[in-house]
Every structure is written in structure tokens, then in C-alpha cells.
């Protein structure tokens, strides 16, 4: 049975990736999980410089979901390359590095640094974090911004470039197309949905940042729809995520059009989820007599119900 998938020039042993911001730098889980058994580990978002992030409270639970406003606390790219990458290399992890910039130049500089570092397999461009004011999402919310940052990064790296898209736009498929036109090797989606929760007794927001990003099973059907839309709009691979907590959930995204999937919030609940997901996927493939997971990608059968309202 062939579980491998291709993201540009990068071949993943299986389609399961740990989502950025939900797996620390990966090394935190090395005692509990064989990191080489994951398709890839996507690092916590990195800026050039270290960042403190937002004051607590940084998360709050909501029905079948959670809001977070961590604020991209992080050690910065230089410490990551010096302290985390060697360990991840030793552990045999496939490393996708999530990079964040306040400016276009910062993305370019990060891409340059990481392209020269040993053990980096792809770059995910964070142009979609809803929790910080500067940079990032200002690129991801416009066609021009997305095009500009992707093409600038593509000029300085040989690595596959994967912009991570925000769902907080009117038409995510048009953003995916702009990324493709700029040379992106794949797109990943969705980042979290901008949301908020209020304590009615104190009338204060439950997050210090007032607003945060919603993740977890609560967002899954919207994310599946957005992956489906993007799959129809672009030829490059789509990496899907949003509330995946079981093999069935992962398969739903794959059938909707995701070449690979990322697991985020569910990893908080069950750090040992990976072999369970792989087992469920292989069981499904056996039951459906599939030898290659790649054959399942985008295999949704809408019959005669294909809807023209889907952006194209």
C-alpha cells in the first residue's frame, strides 16, 4: 500500500502533517512519538527575531473548539536553526518551516536563511495568523499581497513554498489562484477563523488579545468546503486542515481534494493520535481496494450535482 504523496518536489511518506503552532518545534513530542513516522512536522511560526507573544489567557474552550491568541511566541529563526534543527535531523523528521514576516523583506530573509540550513524540506508561509496586527495576514487577505510575497520568496529558495491561507476572506479560491500564479508549490488551508468569546459576568473578553482564532471540530465542515473550492481552482496540491480528529475526518479532506492533511488541535487532546490515524486510513484503503492514497485525492463524486456557484 502506497501512502506517499508529493508536494512539489517533496515526497512525504504519508499525508499526515503536524500543524504549525500545535506541535511546538516538534522536539517536545520526541519522547512520545517517532517523529519520522509523520509525513512532516510543521514548525511553530518563526520570525527573524524572538517574540514574547500575548499575555495569558491565551486560549479558551468553546463548543467543540478552542480560541487561541498565542501571539506567535517564538525563539526566532537563528535559535531554531542552531538548537532545534540538529535534533530534528537526528530524529529523522521531515521539516516544513512556518515563516512569518512583518514585511516582505523579512519573509525573503527567512527563506534565504532556511534555504541554507541543513534539514529543511519546505517552507510554509504564514500569511494568515489572525492574532497579530502587523504583517502576515495583510499579505494573505489580498490577491496582490499573496502574489507578491510568494513570488519574492520563490526567487530566493529552491525549497517547495506553501503559503498558508486564511479563511477570513470572501473568496479563498481566488487567493489560492494568486498563490499558484506566483509560483507556489502548494497551498495549505485553513488557518483559524477570527472569533471571540466574552465572560458575561465580568463583561470582559475571555482572551487577553480580545479576539482569537477558532480551531477544532467546530470549523471542520467549513474547512472541507474551502479545500474543495481551492482544489477546483488550482492545479497545485492543496494541504487541508481544520478540526481533523480521526481517520474519517482526514479521509473526508482527502476526498474533497487535499493531497495531505495537517493535524492541529486534536494533537493537544491525543498526542498519540498518529498511528491511530494511519491505521484508520489503511483500513479504509483495504476496504475500498485502494493501493495508492494519491488516487483518493479529490475523488469526490458530486455526480450531476456539480454546483456552478463554487468559485472557479
Amino acid at each position, binding site marked *: 500500500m502506497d501512502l506517499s504523496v508529493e508536494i512539489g518536489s517533496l515526497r512525504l511518506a504519508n499525508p499526515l502533517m503536524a500543524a504549525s*503552532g*500545535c*506541535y*511546538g518545534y516538534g522536539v*517536545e*513530542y520526541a*519522547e*512520545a512519538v517517532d517523529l519520522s513516522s509523520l509525513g512532516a512536522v510543521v514548525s*511553530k511560526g518563526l520570525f527573524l527575531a524572538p517574540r*514574547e*507573544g500575548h*499575555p*495569558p*489567557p*491565551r*486560549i*479558551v*474552550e468553546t*463548543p*467543540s*473548539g*478552542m480560541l*487561541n491568541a*498565542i501571539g506567535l*511566541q517564538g525563539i526566532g529563526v537563528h535559535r531554531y536553526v542552531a538548537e532545534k534543527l540538529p535534533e530534528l535531523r537526528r530524529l529523522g523528521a521531515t521539516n516544513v518551516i512556518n515563516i512569518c514576516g512583518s514585511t516582505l523583506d523579512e519573509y525573503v530573509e527567512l527563506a534565504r536563511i532556511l534555504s541554507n540550513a541543513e534539514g529543511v524540506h519546505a517552507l510554509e508561509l504564514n500569511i494568515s495568523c489572525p492574532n497579530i496586527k502587523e504583517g502576515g495576514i495583510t499579505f494573505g487577505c489580498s490577491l496582490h499581497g499573496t502574489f507578491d510575497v510568494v513570488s519574492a520568496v520563490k526567487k530566493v529558495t529552491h525549497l517547495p513554498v506553501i503559503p498558508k491561507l486564511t479563511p477570513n476572506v470572501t473568496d479563498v479560491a481566488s487567493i489560492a489562484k494568486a498563490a499558484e500564479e506566483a509560483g507556489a508549490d502548494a497551498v495549505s488551508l485553513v488557518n483559524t477563523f477570527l472569533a471571540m468569546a466574552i465572560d458575561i459576568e465580568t463583561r470582559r473578553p475571555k482572551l487577553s488579545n480580545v479576539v482569537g482564532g477558532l480551531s*477544532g*471540530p*467546530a470549523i471542520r465542515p467549513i474547512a472541507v468546503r474551502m479545500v474543495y473550492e481551492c482544489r477546483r481552482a488550482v492545479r497545485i496540491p492543496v494541504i487541508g486542515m481544520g478540526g481533523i*480528529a480521526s481517520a474519517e475526518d482526514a479521509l473526508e479532506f482527502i476526498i474533497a481534494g487535499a493531497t495531505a492533511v495537517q493535524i492541529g*488541535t486534536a*494533537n*493537544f*487532546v*491525543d*498526542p*498519540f493520535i498518529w498511528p491511530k490515524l494511519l491505521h484508520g486510513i489503511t483500513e479504509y484503503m483495504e476496504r475500498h481496494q485502494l493501493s495508492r492514497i494519491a488516487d483518493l485525492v479529490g475523488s469526490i463524486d458530486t455526480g450531476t450535482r456539480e454546483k456552478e456557484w463554487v468559485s472557479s
Partner: protein
Amino acid sequence: MPLDVEAKVVRNTRLSPDYNVIVLAAPEIAALTKPGQFVMVKSSRGSDPLLRRPFSVFEVVRTSSGIEGLSLLSKRVGVTTRMLFDSVAGDVISCLGPLGRPFDPVAPPRQAWMVAGGVGLAPFATLTEALREQGTRTTLFYGARSGRELFYLDWFASQGVRVVLSTEDGSMGERGRITEPLDRELGRAAGDVMVYACGPERMLEAVAAVAGAHGTPAQLSVERVMGCGMGGCYSCVIPVRGPGGGHHYVRSCMAGPVFTAADVVWDHE
């Protein structure tokens, strides 16, 4: 390495209208647990509630044939603690652990003074056992809202622990906050003392101030809103003093939950 055990509820004892002690058949985790470590608990199969919640391990529960499991001391305040309160023998609760940095038990001639506020009593039963093994003289300063919320007093006494009580309503022990007798006794303490504290954050801050004023070191077990317990989510951070005099956020699930009192920055938020 932490283990994830689908643990059966062995028994659930209600101590008051809000407090319960629940014994979980997770002997594998109990055998590895050091005083002050915690487990992440999930008491439902679906996605509501979605996330696990952290609990200090209260007791390593033993029978004549060995370790039976671990217990949690819980106060009913939210959805997960409500489910723990309502659980019955045979229910299954997912238990991930042991996690976090434990207390460092001192040896004689130093004395151990434990300071507990309310449900913050939880880590002190296992610490008491570790201290007793070393022959360390141990005192428990234990405060609650009322005498009806002071538990396991006989057990601590049976372990040779001197117990000092306070309640906000004066129904048992001294009326007021537990840091008042702590302050008074530290003022006349003979010999070296290590303070251990667990309870509401305002109490921890007061303990840190009192201990600091007497030049006594303290280890504090903090509780922050925690998403994963494994270092993945960066939600449970607490500001600690940096080498340059500023502060930086560290994850209380990995760098804690036990911190050296002098390292924690309280006035940041």
C-alpha cells in the same frame, strides 16, 4: 515519557457538596509519578468538552498487591470537574501523564513547610510521603473558606505532619488567610526551611512575598489555563525573570508547574 491510559474509575468519594476524590485505575502512570507532577484528564468521548484539563496527582493508591492507581482531588467548578464529581465506578476517564517538573523534596536538617489553599492541597499527599521517606520534619499550613472545606487532616497527622489551619470564616483554625500564620512562624523559625505552596495565584504571590521577606526559599506549583500539557500549544505560559532583569514567558507544563518562587514575576499582568 508520559503514558495515555484509558482508566476505569475505581471509586469516587464525595468529600463535600463540591469536593471529591476520584481513584483512577492507572497504575502505570501512578508508578512513575513524582510529587507535584500532574496528569491531563478527559472525561468524555466526544468533542465537548474538547480539551483535557490538568490535575495534580493527589495520591498514589496502593493495595496489599501493589499500586492500584492514582487519585485526583477535585473541586467542582467547571464542566470537567463536574463530570469528575458525577463519575461512578466503572466509568472510563482518559488520563495522560505523568507530566511536568516535580517538587524537590528537602532532606534533614532542613524542614519542609507546605502551604495549601483549598484544592491546592492536591500535590501535598505525595510530597508528604517523599519527605517522610527522607525523615524530613514537615508542617502543613492549610487554608480554606470554611472548616467544611478542610480535608484529610487525620491522614496528614498520621504521617507525622504538624498541621496549622486557617479559614476565612473562622469556623476552624485561625480566622484569616493562611499566609498570616506562615509569616508569624517563619519569623521565629529555627533552622533552614523550604516552603512548598499550591493554591490560588494570589495566595502563591503572597507566599512568595512572605517567604522572600524572611529569606526563605520557596517552590510554588502554579496553575494556568493549559491546552495540551506537552509543550505544544504555548497557552500555559507564566512570566519568569530573565538573566538580563526583564521577564520572559515560559510554559508552565514543561518549565513547571513547580517554579522557584524568586523566579516568578507577579506584577507583569
